[in-house]
């Protein structure tokens, strides 16, 4: 993934640090619009089958209006944790967990909680792009449709705003009624991003959103994420260290189902506390 990504700066560390500074500035200057919206994970363990534990005692806080990046080698459980935030793992038979996760102070495993209302507040971009076999337009407005929105003007406006946000509008504005399956892989991924932000969720979970995108589209999506964090809380899984360094305020490093270290991105990249973290980051970058 790194090889398709441009490295305009010869010194790998200088660019991220610059970006992080600017990100921190934006975060500081944006006045909190809502009450703080945390994701709190406490001592959380997760099993796909009783014998296979893939997450081990994870404790972390995801602050509001910030971008949190999950990094770590393949298979370390990033996706699994992310999919627990909106309970997508419910679809899998045989799962079990220990510990708690709260979103905005609410226990998401509370049996009285309506999963649908939780998911309505959380947008998700999947690791594999998965557009519906419907028109581009219908893909974008899907979350509004299932919420009962019928007003054509509202829908039209949402389509334009979301597609612009996902840097796809210019390419598809003349063929909104055509099947989404006719788009290229990268376009599909951006369509999925547009779909995830259409209903203005409070939290946006993105699982490697840029893995199929070219540098230009990646830059646009990163721009979008910077924009989104003014309103939303963003959690992004990425294998691209530079990306994590550029756009995130906080970075969590996972290894073999354990949270090794989580801190301000600046600290993680410049001054990691744990040796594994340093190895991983320098290994990747060096």
């Amino acid at each position, binding site marked *: 993934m790194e090889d398709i990504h441009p490295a305009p700066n010869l010194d790998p560390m200088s660019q991220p640090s610059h970006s992080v500074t600017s990100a921190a500035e934006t975060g500081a200057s944006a006045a909190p619009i809502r009450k703080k919206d945390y994701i709190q994970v406490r001592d959380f363990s997760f099993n796909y089958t009783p014998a296979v534990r893939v997450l081990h005692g994870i404790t972390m806080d995801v602050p509001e209006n910030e971008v949190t990046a999950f990094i770590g080698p393949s298979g370390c459980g990033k996706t699994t944790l992310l999919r627990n935030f909106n309970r997508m793992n419910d*679809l899998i038979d045989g799962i079990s967990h220990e510990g708690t996760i709260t979103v905005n102070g609410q226990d998401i495993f509370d049996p009285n909680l309506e999963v649908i*209302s939780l*998911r*309505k507040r959380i947008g998700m971009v999947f690791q594999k792009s998965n557009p*519906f076999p419907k028109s581009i337009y219908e893909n974008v407005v899907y979350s509004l449709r*299932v919420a009962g929105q019928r007003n054509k003007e509202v829908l039209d406006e949402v389509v334009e705003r979301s597609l612009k946000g996902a840097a796809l509008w210019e390419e598809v504005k003349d063929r909104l009624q055509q099947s989404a399956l006719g788009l290229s892989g990268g376009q599909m991924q951006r369509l999925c991003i547009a*779909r995830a932000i259409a209903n203005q969720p409070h939290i946006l979970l993105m699982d490697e959103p840029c893995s199929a995108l070219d540098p230009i589209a990646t830059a646009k999506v990163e721009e979008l994420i910077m924009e989104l964090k003014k309103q939303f809380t963003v959690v992004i899984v990425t294998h691209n260290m530079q990306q994590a360094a550029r756009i995130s305020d906080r970075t969590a490093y996972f290894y073999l189902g354990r949270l090794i270290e989580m801190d301000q991105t600046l600290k993680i990249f410049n001054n990691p506390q744990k040796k594994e973290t340093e190895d991983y980051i320098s290994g990747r970058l060096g």
Partner: protein
Amino acid sequence: MVWFSGMWLGIGLLMIVTLLGVIVKNGLSIFWPSRVMEVELVEGSPAAIQGAKVLAGEVRKIQEKSVQAEKGGTAREKQLFVGNRDAFGFGFRYVDESDIAKISYPEGIVLAERVEYGDLIGYPVSLKLATGEVKADSADFTALLEQTVGAGNARRGEIESIEKDQIGKINHRMGVLRLSQRKAELDGKITEDYRTEIAAELAELQRRYEILAGKAAALRAEQKAGLFVYRLPTGIEREIPAGDLMQYYYPNQIGFFGRVGHFFSEIWHFFSREPREANTEGGVFPAIFGTFVMTLLMSVAVVPFGVIAAIYLREYSKQGPLVRAVRIAVNNLAGVPSIVFGVFGLGFFVYFVGGSIDSLFFPERLPTPTYGTGGILWAALTLALMTVPVVIVSTEEAIAAVSRGAREASLAAGASKWQTIQRIVLPASVPGIITGLVLAMARGAGEVAPLMLVGVVKLAPTLPLDTVAPFIHLERKFMHLGFHIYDLGFQSPDSEAAKPMVFATTLLLIALVVVLNASAILLREKLRRRYASSAF
């Protein structure tokens, strides 16, 4: 091994093509107006009809027949369709080629289709009308004959409209009045006023009925007034009411285009007319219509039922031994002999459900059953039950093939499970559902055995759809092409006469099944394109 299976496939295909070819050829050839051959027989031929040496007819078949050894092994014989069943008592005659002294194709011979007794083949002699007798050799005979037959056809149409539509409506209304009186009596709510009111309306209807009946009787008398005199090829002169002639042509005079025109008009008549004379003459419109409506009703019943069952099995039920057992049972249901479904339909739908409906909603009509007897609805439901496994299986497969990604995306967008099924799973499964429907229709439309128990009849007086409220009469008995074939081929008094009709009807049934399937497949392709996926 490849060669071997290839060979079997080839043989199978060849057999199918040959069978289709035979059906198409025989089915279409009955509409083609071939020439009428007049044959002079040698002295003492056993083929002579009523002692006459001359006979005429369309050659339908030429075949070898074996004779005694001293005569020389085999001989050829011709099968002639000689018509004139009223005069001869039969319609076909075999003639040994060795018995034929002379063959000719006389120009003046006419072939006429009549209301009764099949075709007439003979020479026109004269028309005896109220205005006097006009001989066949006079100049205005041709025009007069045409005019008389046209007038006769118009009158017949009028009689039919009076008797079927107008009198039918009056009878229907009378029935309704009597029933409502009966109902009021049963409910104990009858009043003297109501009774006189009904009696008055009945009297008025009766008066109108009598006027119409009188009109019809007058028209009928008029039909019998003129006489068409003709001479049989055997030499005897006969006459029939001119009004009985439906159409006629000179088979040895008309040219190629005349024949083609006749061919298509015959096909059209076959499609559009009602059967006559124990179904061996006329058209098969009620059977086409009955088959079509029954198949549509079956589709309407089978799709929702099958789809709901498949959704339940695949999406909601807990996968376990019970569901697996249900699935095996469903699959085995497809292998149950169809007659068993017929018996079940008769017992469950007709007697139990139909009987209950009757006693609940139509007590005033009892003991005459309304729904408690075979009818198109019960037939459609019986076939739906028979074909539902196919729909369940293909729908389940289609549902299972819907990508996990699309489902997750839908749920992540805040859709409920049902919304996901409705908006994502079902639309993507539509092509699979239609595949199931195609298979169900292919099986259902050609099925006869169970229908014989639950509502198919040889001759249905009315169609299941008409202009009398409530327009769709689901309780009515109906005709069906498959049963029609059975009835013509194996139940008709003159199976030789019915044979061409059997072929034509078979061709039609095949064509109808092909059309139904082709339209379903086209629909599926259209939908597939709409959901077409592109390469990633």
